[in-house]
């Protein structure tokens, strides 16, 4: 019996790596300074955000250029509710996710009628409309000043979230829960159907699938998870401005997904980590950090078409090509 368990353990190296990485994430706050902890918290929040976009780019085949909209709208909802006196974390979390999901369903009814480059352009247009709205509607959003001074939430627990370590663990719990839930989703019949849409929408229709409904479900799910990231982000930074709704933010999330490896869930988290760490490290030496990001992107396009994770999986699998973004 013991022997079987041992063999099973070695036959599932993935479980080992998953366990090890989770353990490292749990123990990290014990051996890291406050700057490192803050960066790691940011990586986990953007990891959630990048995973949510991966559902669209990697699994559904929809390159959406307004993902920051759902992130920012949820963050604004939290900020505005905070200004209205809502301090309870769970209520603001629910509200943030609900608003971004509802907005995704409304927008999805329009944008999902197009595909390919047209889809990309129309999502970009809607994203910029909402960015402009946040910029102009000063009485609600604070305009370009944004909404500052949002303090850490009250969870109704004996632990204070003002403590960065406690807040890190809160983010970590949501990160692991999101990873698990999205992993379950992509391996569910619904997740498989969404991959079918990525592979061939006309074939899926010929097989009796309501592809529009599937795309709308994926779009709403991605927006909901993005909304979760938005709520955590605004509590983390204590500030939200229109820049979080801008196309540059949407572009950054797309880069995280593509550099990390679309269609893998974990890849975009690696992408988020690489981009944020590089951005923080290089920007402390030079203002020209986007130049290095550009070089990284070019290297990925030339040598790692399936992203960093795809590249390493290919190495470990002895040259067997790993499939990422419906390549």
């Amino acid at each position, binding site marked *: 019996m013991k022997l079987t368990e041992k063999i099973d353990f070695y036959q599932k190296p993935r479980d080992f790596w998953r366990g090890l990485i989770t353990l490292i994430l749990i123990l990290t706050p014990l051996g890291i300074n406050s700057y490192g902890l803050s960066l790691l918290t940011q990586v986990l929040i953007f990891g959630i955000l990048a995973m949510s976009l991966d559902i669209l780019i990697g699994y559904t085949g929809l390159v959406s250029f307004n993902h920051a909209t759902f992130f920012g709208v949820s963050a604004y909802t939290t900020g505005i509710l905070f200004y209205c006196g809502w301090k309870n974390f769970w209520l603001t979390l629910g509200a943030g996710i609900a608003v971004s999901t509802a907005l995704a369903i409304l927008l999805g009814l329009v944008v999902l009628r197009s595909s390919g480059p047209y889809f990309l352009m129309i999502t970009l247009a809607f994203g910029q409309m909402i960015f402009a709205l946040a910029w102009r509607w000063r009485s609600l959003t604070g305009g370009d000043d944004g909404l500052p001074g949002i303090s850490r939430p009250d969870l109704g627990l004996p632990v204070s979230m003002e403590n960065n370590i406690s807040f890190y663990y809160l983010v970590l719990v949501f990160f692991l829960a999101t990873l698990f839930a999205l992993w379950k989703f992509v391996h569910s*019949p619904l997740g*498989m*159907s969404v*991959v*079918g849409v990525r*592979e*061939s929408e*006309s*074939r*899926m*229709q*010929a*097989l*009796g*699938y*309501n*592809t529009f409904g599937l795309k709308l479900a994926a779009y709403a799910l991605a927006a909901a998870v993005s909304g979760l990231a938005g709520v955590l982000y605004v509590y983390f930074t204590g500030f939200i401005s229109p820049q979080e709704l801008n196309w540059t933010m949407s572009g950054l999330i797309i880069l995280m997904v593509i550099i990390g490896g679309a269609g893998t869930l974990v890849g975009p988290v690696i992408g988020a980590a690489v981009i944020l760490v590089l951005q923080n490290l290089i920007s402390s030496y030079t203002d020209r950090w986007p130049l290095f990001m550009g070089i990284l992107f070019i290297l990925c396009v030339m040598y790692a078409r399936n992203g960093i994770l795809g590249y390493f999986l290919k190495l470990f699998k002895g040259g067997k090509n790993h*499939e990422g973004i*419906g*390549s």
Partner: protein
Amino acid sequence: MKALEVKDITKKYGGLKVLRHLSLSVAPGERRAIIGPNGAGKTTLFNTITGLSKPDSGKIYIFGKNVTRLSAYHRARLGLSRTFQRNNLFFNLTLLDNINLALHVNRSPQKARDFLQHWGLYHRKNVKVKELSYGEQRQVELLLALVQSPRLMLLDEPTAGISQGESRVITRMIQGLPREVTVIIIEHDMEVVFNLADRITVLNRGQILYEGTAAEVRTHPAVKEIYLGSAGEEGP
């Protein structure tokens, strides 16, 4: 009740009339071939029947139900399935996952395995479809249309681009279908057409030029001239 009834449909792409007041009716269980030169409107006709494109005018009935305004997936749910002229498969997924998707995933995992075993492709179940040979991919194209036990199948050039041996395999697969299934096939290979079809419809410039049995089509002078060549011996 007819398996398929197309009434007076017209389809234009810009200024080009691809289908011109075309009417067609196919009896249940029939094997109907649709032939015609390239550009005759055969695939457009299939696309309008399956709902991938909407006709500008006219009506389409499947087993007596008016489906003209129904979407493609609604029509599929009525028992209509099709294959595509160019392989339209889930290329990055395994063969087994392709069949599972066609079975709407959650029904019975064993059913997909049994189905592949029945059609002799079980040993290839874990191979990604893009890694299968072209001939095998054409078979998968047919299997995806078959696995849902359709009542009406539209096959768009199922033997295009494959060897004679592979073509015979696919022809045998179609011949082996139960008679409850109505089959409409677009095909350029006249050997396949004459082997399979009860009746043949000849399409030219978006209109029906002639309709009859294989023997009648072979000898019809206008068909010979336009499609089979004046000698009536050569293919397109």
